[in-house]
């Protein structure tokens, strides 16, 4: 097949783009500043370094990016402006992200908790947004995190990524597991490229680094060393940094579990825990003070000899969903029958979604203008009483601790509050009730109708069966 016709140099004109300064020369590609009369924004062009003859992985990485990146959207992905034909010169033009990657920030680790926790939650939420679009990144690391002009977190470099609905060009073609060794998950060592929970592992490794200033498995440079993580657990973060709270160690070690099914089942669940530390269920991970003993390690190593892979997600691509179900319930006496109906509907949904967590929510309606904000004792009592009632309602489901959380929202506009909360906790399904049609409802407007119209996800509306006419 004919080789590409053009080579990138400063001043080269191609498809209306003019190449400016060379910004970066990497092992696989060069990155150029470019301008175009139709595009005012700052842009960069990535051009793969194609050597003469056969250089498989470089090209495949570029092909994958060319295939996947234009199919992603949203604030957490670099926006694609154009891509070039291989017959002339392969390239990819994207928006130019200001500043540098997060590598410098990670070099400053350990970070104070007040900085670390919101950042980690932000990365997890951005990752969930990518997963939701059926893409697994598979090369998450500090160098692949940046911010855009608006300050939003952007995940860059999709050269190793996998789109679950598109052919995997990397597939079985390359014998070496790809990825950045200190961060890749055990199953990536085993050539698995279809589990979104691999990204959760990398996120756990980054979080470990942010919390301790050290990498969980050290500066891994060889495949042999990567293989060790099939049986060797990292030094617990607390042993490196005793200032860490148990809940954070719980989150980090859970994300770094060897078996994907022991990790968070979605990035959204991880984001949820980072935002609700008081509701993190602590296990023996939280109190671990040292690595597992020699014999335990040896036992796992013995077992690891035979491991070729791990349990896939229960439904293919299931971890793509947030796995957060939000149940909104009105606990006033006249709504008691409806609240029981919502409970039954929630039980059914959770039965078919064993990985999903439940967030129980109740709205405490406040006056639009609050004269007594925050200080009123009776107001506080009301909040606590609602929380107690909400827990009593939810406990009837018999869910294990850690699978269910309870939140009372105080807001003047319940519909708005529910939609905002669902967006914040990345819920993928809302269950709520609707009153029977009535003059009062027509007069007040319907909370459920508002949520249905504005919610970012599926909504199930529960109704009491109407008596026969």
């Amino acid at each position, binding site marked *: 097949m004919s080789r590409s016709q053009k080579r990138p140099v400063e001043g080269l004109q191609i498809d209306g783009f003019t190449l400016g300064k060379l910004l970066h020369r990497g092992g696989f590609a060069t990155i150029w500043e470019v301008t175009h009369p139709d595009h005012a924004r700052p842009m960069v062009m990535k051009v793969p370094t194609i050597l003469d003859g056969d250089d498989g992985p470089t090209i495949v990485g570029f092909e994958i990016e060319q295939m996947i990146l234009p199919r992603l959207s949203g604030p957490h992905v670099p926006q694609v402006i154009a891509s070039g034909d291989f017959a002339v010169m392969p390239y990819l033009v994207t928006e130019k992200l200001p500043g540098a990657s997060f590598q410098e920030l990670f070099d400053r680790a350990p970070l104070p908790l007040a900085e670390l926790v919101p950042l980690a939650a932000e990365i997890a939420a951005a990752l969930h947004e990518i997963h939701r679009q059926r893409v697994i990144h598979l090369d998450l690391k500090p160098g692949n995190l940046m911010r855009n002009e608006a300050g939003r977190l952007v995940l860059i470099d999709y050269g190793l990524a996998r789109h679950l609905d*598109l*052919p995997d060009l990397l597939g079985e*073609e390359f014998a070496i597991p790809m990825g950045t060794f200190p961060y890749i998950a055990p199953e990536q060592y085993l050539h698995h490229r279809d589990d979104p929970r691999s990204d959760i592992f990398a996120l756990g490794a980054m979080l470990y680094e942010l919390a301790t200033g050290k990498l969980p498995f050290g500066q891994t440079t060889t495949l042999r060393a990567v293989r060790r993580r099939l049986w060797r657990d990292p030094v617990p973060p607390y042993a490196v940094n005793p200032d860490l709270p148990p809940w954070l160690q719980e989150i980090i070690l859970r994300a770094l579990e060897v078996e994907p099914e022991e990790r968070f089942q979605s990035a959204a669940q991880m984001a949820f825990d980072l935002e609700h530390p008081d509701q993190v269920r602590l296990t023996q991970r939280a109190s671990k003070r040292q690595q597992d003993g020699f014999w335990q390690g040896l036992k796992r190593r013995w077992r690891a000899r035979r491991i070729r892979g791990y349990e896939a997600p229960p439904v293919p691509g299931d971890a793509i969903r947030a796995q957060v179900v939000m149940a909104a319930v009105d606990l006033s006496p006249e709504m008691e029958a409806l609240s029981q109906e919502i409970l039954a509907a929630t039980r059914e949904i959770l039965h078919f979604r064993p990985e999903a967590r439940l967030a129980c929510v109740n709205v405490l309606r406040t006056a639009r203008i609050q004269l007594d904000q925050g200080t009123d004792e009776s107001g506080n009592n009301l909040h606590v009483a609602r929380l107690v009632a909400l827990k009593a309602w939810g406990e009837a489901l018999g869910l294990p601790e850690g699978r269910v959380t309870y939140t009372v929202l105080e807001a003047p506009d319940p519909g708005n509050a529910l939609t905002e909360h669902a967006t914040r906790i990345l819920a993928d399904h809302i269950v709520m009730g609707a009153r029977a049609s009535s003059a009062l409802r027509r007069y007040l407007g319907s909370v459920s109708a508002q949520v249905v119209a504005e919610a970012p996800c599926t909504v199930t509306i529960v109704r009491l069966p109407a008596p026969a006419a």
Partner: protein
Amino acid sequence: MRIALISDIHGNREALEAVLADARARDIGRFVVLGDIVGYGPDPDWCVARVQALQAEGALVIQGNHDAAIEGSARDMNGTARAAIDWTRPRLSAARSAWLSALPLTIAEEDRFYAHASAHCPGDWIYITSERGAMASFRSCDASLTFCGHVHEPALYSCDRGGRVQAHAVKPRMPVPLLSSRRWLVVAGSVGQPRDGSPQAGWVIFDTRSRELSFRRTPYDYVLTAGKIQAAGLPEDLALRLRTGR
């Protein structure tokens, strides 16, 4: 422009009508019929007439092995296929039979190449069912895109710049960008007799502007077609296959 690639109609009127109706709703600018308009199915005459009408409107039509066997020899075919050809011959007018015989084996258009079985020795009717089979086709022609039928099971292969051939899993509906960095071979599946476990008619849309390929499945009334096959006295197996898609 969006091109609909339809192959292996095999005298199945209901399937062809359903696919054409589906295609009309999907903004198709051109049809390419990849051969085997007749054989197996109960409505060869109607299907040939319909494809001739498509051709008059600008469709490209190439010849398949069953089409060639009408005026040629059915010696190399299995018993069922041969019996169906013998049943079909007297049901086509001389003019239609001659039209089938005169169809070209391959057509090249821009960077696209159309053949019924393979670009490699197209008249030998080789089945491409593996990367090895695809490689022979890639080596025989330098078009960026080759479209075939013949196998009755949709498939997608790519050949990278190093000459490595890879088979890719096929998902219905999801558009796949056929990157210009590789050459691609598309096996379109079968309209009139799918054999991949789904009885729905299989075909393909290719968008020349976005270079996106979508494998489509269109439901049709196969119970009706299967009944016609039985009523016509064609081999019983042919009716069963339509119900199971095997």
